[in-house]
């Protein structure tokens, strides 16, 4: 049985762990607020972009000369899965939830006889996917050194994806990330970005405004579609960032609570043992005194 001293050491170490998890929780909470603000600040741009694109695209996608980013390559043989995960762990199921979704999608595509390629953004996703799909990972990128996520990071990824698309390396691109619902709920999401799925503008109230275009419609569209990809990736990265801190916050909250529970139990055992020893010593003293 562990001696009293051993138990004291153990309790102290659990307390130290609790302090760390508590600190991590608070750091995550403050970072979460910033990440959430960033995600909200990016929303108007993405929404306007969606509105404009769906307006122009509805007219353009029907015409035969539609750009491949919108109309697709006409095949869906090769799929590129763009998996965005976090750089660090200690965030509950955040990373594995995204990876699981991507893996399920990949397996079902492979079962259908399609070819699958991966583009991993973030270290954690790469590490997990490497186990099953090492050969299919065509590129991976770490954002570890990035302190503040900027639009340039997203643009960088978009350029790499577009280069592969132009080289004919894949037909369909799907983006995997975690949508931030609330602190306790982050939803892993798959979103097809190439070819772009356009929401039909009929859903909007009122007749569609007929715009003048300057320069021509298709010229604007050709410039806009690659930008839109970058915007979608940027939004995914920001949502991911907010989700990561949300997940980390609740994970660390749990850890702090578990540590508290453990400390309570250990202290109880410690006290019980201590009392038992005192009682034993008393008995020894008393029986010793009686014997005299």
């Amino acid at each position, binding site marked *: 049985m562990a001696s009293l001293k051993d138990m004291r050491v153990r309790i102290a170490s659990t307390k130290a762990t609790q302090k760390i998890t508590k600190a991590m929780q608070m750091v995550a909470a403050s970072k979460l607020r910033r990440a959430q603000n960033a995600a909200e600040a990016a929303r*108007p741009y993405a929404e306007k972009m969606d509105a404009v694109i769906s307006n122009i695209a509805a007219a353009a996608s029907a015409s035969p000369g539609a750009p491949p980013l919108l109309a697709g390559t006409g095949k869906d043989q090769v799929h590129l899965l763009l998996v965005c995960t976090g750089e660090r762990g200690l965030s509950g199921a955040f990373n594995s939830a995204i990876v699981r979704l991507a893996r399920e999608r990949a397996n079902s595509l492979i079962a259908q006889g399609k070819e699958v390629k991966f583009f991993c953004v973030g270290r954690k996703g790469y590490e997990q996917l490497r186990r099953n799909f090492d050969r299919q990972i065509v590129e991976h990128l770490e954002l570890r050194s990035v302190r503040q996520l*900027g*639009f340039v990071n997203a643009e960088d990824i978009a350029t790499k994806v577009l280069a592969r698309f132009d080289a004919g390396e894949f037909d369909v691109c799907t983006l995997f990330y975690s949508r931030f619902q609330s602190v306790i709920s982050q939803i892993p999401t798959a979103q097809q970005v190439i070819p772009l799925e356009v929401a039909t503008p009929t859903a909007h109230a009122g007749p569609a405004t007929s*715009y*003048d*275009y300057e320069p021509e419609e298709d010229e604007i569209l050709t410039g806009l579609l690659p930008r839109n990809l*970058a915007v979608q990736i940027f939004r995914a990265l920001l949502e991911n960032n907010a989700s990561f801190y949300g997940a980390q916050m609740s994970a660390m909250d749990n850890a702090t609570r578990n540590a508290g529970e453990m400390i309570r139990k250990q202290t109880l055992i410690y006290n019980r043992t201590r009392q038992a020893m005192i009682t034993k010593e008393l008995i020894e003293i008393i029986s010793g005194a009686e014997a005299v």
Partner: protein
Amino acid sequence: MTTFHFDLVSPEKLAFSGEVDQVDVPGVEGDFGVLAGHAPVVAAVRPGILTIITAGKREKVIVLGGLAEMSDKGLTVLADVATAIADLDRTKFSETIKGMEEKLAEKEGSELDNAIERLDHFKSIENELNTTAMH
């Protein structure tokens, strides 16, 4: 004077939102001024200086490309980058231009044309900045 609603959004933030009298937008095919009741138009924006006029006051914002959309709800400019002139770091800006000039050598074909065009836009912004800085 009737006003209209104007939003200037960049991917990172909502740079401007409010009622304005007039906005001068640097379009790809030339600058154009927008007043209330402008016909609906979608126009590509070149890197340049966008002027917002509210009650006689002029506010200048540097936009680096994007898209302008005028509808009955007002004008929306989706700018790749939007920086108020006051916030611009001039030395950094001229460094960007230098970097672009150096990269020109590596490019060819239509990519080179695009790069030169973009560089010209940047230079004209810098030129305008330096000439108006005296006032």
